[in-house]
């Protein structure tokens, strides 16, 4: 018997900006800004945006209803056409990844885990407020199965049916019908009608953003590079949640600065810096681990084939007839035909795209990231590796997840890969010279 009594220790509430979760974003953002030289001035807008949203937890405002998306296959133009705002929910935080682990098997996609962890949290960062609807395309298995979990958390979830086969006309029609059904659902949600004017305005808004991105993308062709990949990923990641008109203006301003850099012969890297094409599971802030390791080691990510950047903004809608039904069908085609996601049965388009990107951007090698548990990217590695092997293009395959504990080992591998690329280049030049 003792005279001690137990007591309940109350939970200490910490302001978000001092939490470990904010610290994760803080560290990455500080690293992106401070540990590299000559950041473009126009990037300040994006640095400030991520500082306020991810480090200070400031509110992200939107117009009309909020429709969350969990995949780039959700046609955002349609959402805009109904006067709502789309926001991509795919999350890159290790903090949320750990929180989401209870919902999913131990070896499974960090991205889906993090998204579930975020949606299940009391304090959702970015602070977008509760979506009026979440549209969840049935693309990959793990995304598909997360649908009912999101429903159980109290969200209104719409399953957008997406085909597994690209090449068949049946799939094309299935997808067109699926998109039209989605339009019907949006009409019920918003209480508005889909008009040609509304759709055209939406096409213009997104078209302008895509054009700004493509111009930005074209500046990466230059050698030596005038801008680093870490900044491009930050710009495209901002597209997930930033106001689209403001985002477009800021990218256009960045393009103006890059044009000036180009005219002045500015170099962001040394002429021998290895040029890398990045492909695979998408880097989403704050998980820019792999692209940052590449650029810390002296490489430069000159292009990417990932859905958090290039694949999200590159393709345009080609409209045949400017009538609502035809416009919606053309929109559906834009989402299906150029898609190089590994969820399809065949991946000829992806291989073709990758080889083309290596050629146009004069890449010295490829880094292929697969999140542990992402079976589709893991499985496509084999055929992509063979295609690159035949073309004589070096590739490094990295299987990793959101946890920061493998940075040391990964940096060794990346350095070895860059060293090998540099050597190859030297040998080729000597042979040619």
């Amino acid at each position: 018997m003792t005279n001690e009594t137990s007591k309940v220790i109350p939970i200490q509430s910490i302001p978000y900006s001092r939490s470990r979760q904010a610290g994760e974003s803080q560290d990455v953002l500080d690293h992106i800004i401070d540990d590299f030289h000559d950041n473009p001035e126009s990037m300040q807008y994006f640095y400030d945006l991520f500082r306020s949203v991810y480090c200070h937890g400031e509110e992200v405002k939107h117009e009309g209803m909020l429709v969350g998306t969990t995949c780039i296959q959700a046609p955002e133009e349609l959402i805009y056409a109904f006067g709502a705002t789309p926001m991509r929910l795919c999350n890159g935080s290790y903090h949320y990844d750990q929180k989401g682990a209870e919902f999913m098997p131990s070896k499974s996609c960090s991205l889906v885990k993090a998204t579930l962890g975020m949606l299940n949290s009391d304090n959702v960062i970015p602070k977008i407020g509760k979506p009026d609807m979440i549209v969840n395309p049935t693309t990959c298995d793990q995304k598909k199965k997360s649908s009912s979990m999101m429903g159980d958390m109290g969200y209104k979830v719409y399953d957008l049916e997406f085909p597994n086969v690209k090449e068949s006309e049946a799939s094309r029609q299935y997808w067109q019908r699926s998109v039209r059904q989605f339009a019907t659902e949006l009409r019920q949600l918003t209480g508005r009608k889909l008009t040609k004017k509304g759709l055209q305005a939406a096409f213009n808004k997104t078209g302008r953003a895509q054009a700004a991105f493509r111009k930005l993308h074209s500046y990466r062709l230059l050698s030596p590079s005038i801008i680093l990949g870490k900044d491009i990923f930050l710009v495209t990641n901002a597209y997930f949640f930033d106001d689209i008109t403001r985002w477009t203006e800021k990218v256009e301003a960045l393009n103006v600065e890059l044009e000036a850099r180009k005219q002045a012969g500015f170099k962001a890297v040394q002429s021998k810096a290895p040029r890398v094409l990045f492909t695979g599971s998408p880097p989403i802030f704050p998980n820019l681990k792999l692209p940052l390791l590449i650029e810390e080691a002296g490489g430069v990510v000159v292009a990417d084939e990932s859905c958090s950047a290039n694949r999200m903004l590159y393709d345009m809608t080609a409209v045949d007839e400017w009538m609502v039904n035809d416009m919606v069908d053309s929109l559906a085609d834009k989402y299906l035909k150029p898609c190089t996601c590994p969820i399809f049965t065949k991946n000829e388009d992806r291989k073709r795209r990758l080889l083309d990107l290596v050629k146009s951007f004069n890449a010295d090698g490829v880094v292929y990231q697969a999140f542990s548990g992402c079976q589709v990217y893991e499985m496509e590695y084999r055929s992509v590796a063979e295609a690159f092997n035949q073309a004589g293009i070096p590739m490094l395959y990295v299987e990793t997840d959101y946890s920061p504990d493998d940075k040391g080992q990964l940096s060794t591998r990346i350095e070895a890969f860059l060293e090998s690329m540099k050597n190859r280049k030297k040998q080729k030049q000597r042979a040619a010279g």
Partner: protein
Amino acid sequence: MNYFAGIDVGSTAIKVAVVNEAGDIAGVHVTASGSLFHKNSLEALNTLLDKLGLKREDVRYLIATGYGRKLFKEADDSISEITANAIGAFEAGKAFGGVRTIINIGGQDSKAIQIDDTGNVVNFAMNDKCAAGTGRFLDVAARNLDLDLEELGEYHFKSEVAPLNINSTCTVFAESEIIGLLANGHGKAEIIAGIHYSIASRTVRLAKRVGIEDRVYFDGGPALNKGLVAALQDELGRELVIPEHPQTTTAFGAAVLARNEFVAEQSSEKV
């Protein structure tokens, strides 16, 4: 006479190599890493220089490699241990008609490297996620069997029965397995042989990921263990090229690179 040095700052041991202008080895030195990497690296370098009767100024270029390569500020440059190992093995392999596959088992990791006929790294695979199949496994085994690390090799050949199957893939869990086998009356020799085969088969699986081509070069501290070498040869089904000082191949590669870089810089200055 100009000299060039390579220092491999590993997690377990620091290895230093010095080569002359022709790229031939002048001397090597191996010491424990300890926790003060920079201090111990400097000491290791000075110890070797003293042994060779050289001064620090005689070393015209110094390259650091290994786990602690960026921490050693005394070096002129740093390079990944994969590239350094490839260069070292390529040079050493010339005497045997050329080496194309390199297997390295270190203190905490293991790697397989494929090189082309100019010594350039074509492909590589690393086991750097856990200590299974690394020097650490041998450490743990020796401790549990109450032996010195150096005794494991000779015990391997004392086994009069087939090597035991060690099922645990985890080094830490394998401890319990070893203790259990001893308690069940199994002899040290067949347990040790079993451990060697366990490491060997895991290593061969790793090497298959990059493709195995003759000749195969095996280095890293554990390559001093003749029993492990025998097990690896058996699992591979091929002969192995083992250097005289397997721990220092990587440091040697860094030294050769230091020499090459210096020579290249000199000739570009002349132009």
